[in-house]
């Protein structure tokens, strides 16, 4: 009788359960994939015929065949740049403080827990805050600046958390080497810790900004317009953005506008994929070049 041959009934039952578990997990994965593919195909079928140069270079219009997303596209670009300008210094600065300077005490831990909670606050709450503080309090009105500041608040916790992760992965040996050579904390951080952490920080920033791009609710509250027939020229101008424009079109009764919305979604998805691909590329490149 072979020692390694077919086992008992109990062993066969274990193998069956193992195979079933594997199948179960694969099915769960497939479910998500199928839903995504169905959604994407539907939108593609409905919208891809509308995505052309005319669509990208025209302002919205009451006539579907003349309507385009130029003002929304430019508005989104403005929002991304302004949001990055505000949130990156704030976020990276906070992350450096928390990782490199803050004493490890109860107050710091309290801050950390609340930062994590802030990342989970519904975006509409940020919109209401933005409306009260930036639009009314600072009197910025329904402007690009008010919208960007609101989105900055929204992505700040994400940027802080991602930057802290990146800073934490920098080996302590770099810091020790720097200090042992008579570096001040600033010199150690600016010359060695931050350069080593930048790929990770950049990845986090891009992912945070791509989240901001897709946000609709806070911008609706802050007062983005559904119909803007000009390209904003300054930070205090009225604006619209891709998700707002899409929302506006889906809310109309005519079929053609629904198709326009699908086309807008395709453009938005393309922008998001481009940003995420950039983030992945940066991460891969940094991982390859990392000598430690």
């Amino acid at each position: 009788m072979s020692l390694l041959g077919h086992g008992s009934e109990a062993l066969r039952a274990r193998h069956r359960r193992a195979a079933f578990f594997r199948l179960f997990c694969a099915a769960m994965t497939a479910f998500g994939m199928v839903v995504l593919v169905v959604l994407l195909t539907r939108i593609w079928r409905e919208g891809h015929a509308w995505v052309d140069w005319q669509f990208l270079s025209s302002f919205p219009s009451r006539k579907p065949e003349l309507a385009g997303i130029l003002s929304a596209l430019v508005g989104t670009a403005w929002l991304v740049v302004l949001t990055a300008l505000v949130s990156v210094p704030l976020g990276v600065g906070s992350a450096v403080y928390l990782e490199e300077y803050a004493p490890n005490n109860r107050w710091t831990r309290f801050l950390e827990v609340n930062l994590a909670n802030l990342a989970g606050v519904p975006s509409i709450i940020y919109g209401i805050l933005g409306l009260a503080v930036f639009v009314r309090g600072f009197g910025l009105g329904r402007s690009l600046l008010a919208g960007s500041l609101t989105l900055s608040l929204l992505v700040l916790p994400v940027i802080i958390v991602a930057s802290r992760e990146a800073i934490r992965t920098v080996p302590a040996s770099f810091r020790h080497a720097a200090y042992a050579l008579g570096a001040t904390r600033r010199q150690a951080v600016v010359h060695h810790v931050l350069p080593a952490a930048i790929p990770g920080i950049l990845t986090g920033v891009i992912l945070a900004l791509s989240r901001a791009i897709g946000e609709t609710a806070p911008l609706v509250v802050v007062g983005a317009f559904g119909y803007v027939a000009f390209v904003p020229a300054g930070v205090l101008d009225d604006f619209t953005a891709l998700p707002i424009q899409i929302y506006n079109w889906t809310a109309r009764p005519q079929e053609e506008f629904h198709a326009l919305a699908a086309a807008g979604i395709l453009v938005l998805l393309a922008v998001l994929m481009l940003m995420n691909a950039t983030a992945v590329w940066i991460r891969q490149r940094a991982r390859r070049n990392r000598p430690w």
Partner: protein
Amino acid sequence: MVAAHDAPLVPRPRPEIERSEGRMEPVAATPVLEAKGVSIAYGEKVAVREVSLQFLENRITAIIGPSGCGKSTLLRAFNRMNELIGDVHTTGNFLYRGEDIYSRDVDPVQVRRRIGMVFQKPNPFPRSIFQNVAWGPAINGLALKSELPARVEEALRMAALWDEVKDRLDDSGFSLSGGQQQRLCIARTLAMEPDVILLDEPASALDPVSTAAIEDLLFELKKRYTIVIVTHNMQQAARVSDFTAFLESGKLVEFGETDQVFTRPRQKRTEDYVTGRFG
């Protein structure tokens, strides 16, 4: 913040480089570093208890002892590296040429400039070989930009690395072998022109050939520097050092000339350790 030329803590003439072979006469030496009744604790855990010892000028002192005996902690206390780790409580006196290293008006940055350190694992910066060596003098304003190449070359020569890297100074420090990386870290420390060099098990991550290269280097360096080396390798301590301190469970068991500690130990514990009966 960056002072181009600040006065030394204590004026001192650079000792003449002695060309004679072998160990120097102990009478000429003066204590450069001194610990007086020092204890170091991490939170509740006491790592070093009531240790007193001296490190003499142009001598190599080895600190030996089993893992976890507190030897690295004691070493790091001399250039105030422990406080970077966090909750460390240090008592007693650490003196550098008579000056209290932990005095309130002493700047730890100044301490670390005079008392350099080489770590257990080679830790070059992810920069070029040149930049690795030039960074310390540059940030401390010790050399003009135009003087840096000469200073880098001198440091690399002293670290016996120059001939191996002179044609590839722009390559990454990580392109070197482990032993070369450690000599690069030594060169980086030498470029600061410190007074004392602390080495924390500098050869424990290296192969025997690289280890021998580092040990040869130490003989050269002690002509100009005061050296303290922590090691768990007793042969290494016996080979390179003039004085040996044996630490166990945070207590100083024995401290004396290396020959005496290894051949005629006064304490039974020392004898057991150096003859390999434990540890």
